[in-house]
């Protein structure tokens, strides 16, 4: 139902590193889960709209002004960053010359 290469592909899409052992285990477990969820294919939903959420939500608008109640100091906002350089987050290179 789901192959090892499918799992590898999806793991890559999800940016999730898996060991060989994890891949092996996951192929069997996911196959059984997908088999179980396939009971939904027997339900006739041709005339049914999808539900994304259950309360009648509408967009809530507010003025675009800073709120003191949710203000974070720069130091507090950055304190959890694993890698910093002064007042900035340090991130791996995403744009390189020639690429």
């Amino acid at each position, binding site marked *: 139902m789901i192959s090892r290469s499918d799992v590898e592909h999806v793991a890559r899409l*999800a940016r999730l590193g898996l060991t060989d052992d994890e891949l092996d285990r996951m192929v069997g477990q996911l196959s059984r*889960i997908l088999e*179980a969820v396939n009971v939904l294919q027997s339900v006739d939903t041709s005339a049914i709209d*999808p*539900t994304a959420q259950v309360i009648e939500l509408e967009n809530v608008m507010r003025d675009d002004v800073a709120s003191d109640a949710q203000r974070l100091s720069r130091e507090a906002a950055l304190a959890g960053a694993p890698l910093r350089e002064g007042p900035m987050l340090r991130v*791996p290179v995403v744009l390189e010359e020639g690429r």
Partner: protein
Amino acid sequence: MPVAGVLPLADRTITEARELLERREVSSRELTEACLARIARDGGELNTFIAVGEERALAAADAADAATATGDARPLLGIPYALKDIFVTRALDDAGQPDGGLPTTAGSKILAGYRSPYASSAEERLGAAGAVLLGKTNCDEFAMGSSNENSAYGPVRNPWDRSTVPGGSSGGSSAAVAAGQAFFATGTDTGGSIRQPAALSGVVGMKPTYGRVSRYGMVAFASSLDQCGPFGRSVRDVATVLEALAGHDPRDSTSVNVPVPDYAAALTGEVRGLRLGVPREYFVAGMEPGVEASVRAAIGVLEGLGAEIVEVSLPSTDKGLATYYIITPAEASANLARYDGVRYGQSAGDDDLLTNYLATRGDGFGPEVKRRIILGTYALSAGYYDAYYVKAQQVRTLIKAEFDAVLADVDALLAPTSPSVAFKIGAKTDEPLLMYLNDACTLPVNIAGLPGISVPCGLADALPVGFQVIGRAFDEETVLRVADAYERAAGFSDLRPPTAHD
């Protein structure tokens, strides 16, 4: 079984503790010390807490005692409680330095040592109500699990039998409340994570209507289903805590702006004139006979009190599990994309972007979280989106419509909470599907967004059984009223585990 009135201080209800506080027979400091003593005695072995803030708790207790001395008598003033470690607690000052607040892990290694720069709505509201925060309780990683065995900080043990699980994902909260380590606790419920551990630990646990309580500062699992709710040792206690938690919060766009009723006033003890439905599909094959007998007896008690009991049908119930295990992994895979090793949490620190993502997330997440990210990413990926995700959302419409139709005819539904009592640690860890079945009776309620409560209804094989009352959207009052009337009549409200001694 201990007799009411002679239970140790730590094992009493909020209602009783408040009476003692108001009569000045006990102080908040004494209540807090009683809980801390239990945590010190049993907390290590039961593994209920990930963090305890003793100094801050005692300071808050002293502040509550000072307020009491001025005549302040708010319903949660001076009551010690715990937050599931999925609620962020402010732990940094404006200079970015630790401020004495508690760290937040969500049960995950990827957040080890994380200190939040802001407080969750739950921490704010309960603090403003004068309750005393003791610490953060253990839970399944990112609230994914039904046994508390998926925590990166080790499994929680059930105080009724330490070889069994307390349920999950809020198992630290349910076990702490059962074991006298806190008078109440918060949990989160995406598919049963409050109600199922409440049942397995022998306490009351309630999932309010989706939108009733703010999710601000609650680490997200599946955003269209996650909801915050309380654990307590009585229905009245849970009603009191719910009233403090509930209400509109502009910081959560799914929090609904409707008035919060006086929940305690709904506890009339009267169920005469109510029509209560029993959905036949909830008494499934594979349910333990002892559980079914206790739940059937509970329904009989409510009938004896004058409620009209009618059998009803929710035909798509058996599609709930499949619907849930597409929708929630899909939402989780999107929510957990934020753990990228850049802004907070653990990082592998590699200079190559892709390598850094793969290593950070591969090392930081546990097996169940990985499984759900893969499953959710698969269900959302090109070529499978319509067959899995859209299909599940369509079946969600059906499940909700069936609840709406039945609840137009009856005032509330009665059902088992979990098909089994607490099971042995390790018994279901090899096969995820077997574990998922624990939530078959609770997750349809989340799919429909309805309120539900689990109330203890006796013991089977010397372990607690719970039954569920499910209500109409935003009608927590009827749910609480039915549960309270049952609790008063049934005589199980003083059930406590073997930890209930000083």
